[in-house]
């Protein structure tokens, strides 16, 4: 039924276009329904909302005429109007509420895109009640909806509307500069990515949620894995435990993130389970609120393993950059971190900042501060079993044992020689 209405609307709109002049004007032919709408909505109409705000009801006719939706006309989306249900008499609680309602309208024609969007971090944030999370119209606008090609230039739109700082970092990165410079990379014409090439347009996953972004890097840099294996010992493990940006954004601040992970289900542990939230558990364990130390971390993992059904919880470590801005400051290959000593020594920058993270329903991570000493504690042998960087995260207790072995080893000859001297002296006296 709905589909037929859309089709009829499309036909009507197309028919109207065929007979109507190219320009929209309030004085358009009376059988043009859009002209009827614009007769009022080209004026500075306002509507008072229940939340006290005011909604501007003016639509720029020329912009709508240029939009891709011009072909379906006003009633293509505002379907209640032809049914005599003009919303002027209906109360609207807020602009957000109105946008959310029309988000569903988009899905009636763009079902596939909407399905992609529904699983995205944006949609999850909307579902979680985040009023800043974008709906369709926030990226595509309400009435000036343009073709995909319009979004491709290096303007950063629409992503930069919310992620301006990240876009600025991208614009100065090897990708952004190449894009602005005619896509010339290493004297070859290679299409440098814009936002959607890495993050996708609608099924945007939380960057921290999985390994998908690394796979995205490798989709273009398909020789990277082999290239790393030529010089980097345990290249596969490095690529799993170190984010691409941690090395390829050389000026970035780095940290180690320890994500709670269910080894049996092979998925990150969710914030919420039958026993309550991990956040509550963390706050209970770290009652002082001074960051999790190694014993508290061990308690967290052990407690996690004892909840209800048998689960095997561990902490999966990964070195990453600290901010999204840093993640986009990607440098040319020659400037990437190449020196092993950058990480593999005590006091290295990346090990000074440690967080423990838990997956939130929207796919993002909730992070909690941890004491950096957890990486060097013998207690962490159990809780942080899979993350170890020789030199950088060495266990201090073993350093002490090595000194003890050296001292003990040297004590044998020194003690034995001293004993010999003592006994000979004693024998001489006798």
């Amino acid at each position, binding site marked *: 039924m709905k589909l037929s209405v859309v089709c009829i609307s499309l036909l009507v709109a197309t028919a109207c276009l065929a007979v109507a002049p190219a320009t929209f004007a309030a004085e358009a032919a009376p059988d043009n329904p859009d002209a009827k709408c614009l007769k009022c909505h080209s004026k500075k109409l306002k509507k008072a909302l229940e939340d006290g705000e005011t909604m501007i009801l003016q639509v720029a006719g020329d912009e709508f005429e240029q939009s891709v939706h011009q072909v379906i006309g006003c009633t293509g989306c505002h379907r209640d109007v032809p049914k005599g249900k003009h919303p002027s008499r209906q109360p609207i609680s807020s602009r957000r509420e109105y946008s959310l309602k029309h988000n569903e309208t988009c899905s009636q024609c763009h079902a596939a895109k909407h399905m992609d969007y529904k699983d995205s971090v944006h949609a999850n944030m909307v579902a979680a009640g985040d009023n800043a999370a974008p709906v369709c119209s926030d990226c595509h606008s309400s009435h000036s909806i343009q073709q995909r090609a319009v979004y491709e230039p290096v303007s950063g739109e629409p992503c930069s509307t919310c992620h301006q700082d990240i876009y600025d970092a991208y614009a100065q990165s090897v990708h952004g500069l190449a894009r602005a410079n005619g896509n010339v990379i290493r004297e070859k014409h290679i299409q440098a990515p814009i936002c959607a090439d890495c993050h996708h347009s609608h099924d945007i996953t939380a960057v921290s949620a999985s390994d998908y972004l690394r796979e995205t890097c490798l989709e273009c840099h398909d020789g990277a894995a082999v290239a790393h294996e030529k010089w980097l*010992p*345990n290249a*596969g*493990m490095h690529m799993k435990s170190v984010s691409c940006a941690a090395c390829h954004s050389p000026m970035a601040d780095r940290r180690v993130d320890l994500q709670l992970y269910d080894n049996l289900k092979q998925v990150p542990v969710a914030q919420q389970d039958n026993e309550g939230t991990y956040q509550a558990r963390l706050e209970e364990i770290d009652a002082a609120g001074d960051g999790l130390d190694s014993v508290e971390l061990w308690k967290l993992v052990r407690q996690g393993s004892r909840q209800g059904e048998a689960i095997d919880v*561990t902490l999966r470590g990964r070195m990453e950059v600290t901010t999204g801005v840093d993640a986009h400051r990607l440098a040319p290959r020659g400037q990437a971190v190449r020196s*092993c*000593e950058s990480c*593999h*020594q*005590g*006091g290295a920058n990346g090990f000074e900042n440690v967080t423990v993270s838990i997956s939130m329903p929207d796919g993002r991570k909730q992070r909690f501060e941890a004491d950096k000493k957890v990486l060097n504690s*013998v207690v*962490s*042998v*159990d809780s*942080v*079993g*899979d*993350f*170890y960087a*020789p*030199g950088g995260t*060495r*266990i201090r207790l*073993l350093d002490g*044992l*090595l000194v003890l*072995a*050296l001292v*003990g*080893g*040297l004590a*044998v*000859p020194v003690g*034995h020689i001293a*004993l*010999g001297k003592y*006994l*000979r002296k004693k*024998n001489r006296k006798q």
Partner: protein
Amino acid sequence: MTTTTMNYSHQHGKPEKVYLHPVPVRLWHWLNALGFTLLILTGLQIRYVDLFSLMSFETAVKLHNWVGFGVIANWFLWFIYYLFSERVTNYHPDLDPVSFFQRYFRQAGYYSWGYFQGDQRPHKVQPNDKFNPMQKLTYQFVMFISAPVTFLTGLMMWDVRRFQGLIEMVGGLRVVNTVHVLMFILFVGFIITHIYMGFLGKKPSSHYKEMVTGYEEEH
């Protein structure tokens, strides 16, 4: 492999010399000494880049890996030699622990008292029984437990992805590294003691000469 005893006493009136260390054993021993020296140096460099800089981390890792494989191959030289030699009895466990530990403490007493009094060594060295109880227990532990565990944990860290299943089974990379370092610490203590004990022959150079010529020096 046959046991060789050169009976100098009958022909020349000199004390009997016993052939203690056949060529494969001496070859293994000195290759091992060289290998372990390099492994300790590179291992310390890998672990303590922030404290000293003998070579780059990258070089230390490469050298450590190559020498590690060499030492593993060398262990098999030792193992195969003894497996097919009658001298394997040197490593046989003593089936009478009470008697063994009595002799063990007698040997310890000798080193702490009798040695300085010029007493006769309590253990008579023979080609098929050349280790005193203290040596035997130490070498059994080093060769059958410590070295293989170090090799295995080293291999696991050499290629983490290849041994991922095994690493997860034992509790993770940090567990593997901790065991590897613990074994290294034991080796450090062992080697210092081992080098010193080498000087406790009749003359300080006696045991070192034995490991070169193969023949027991006079006692």
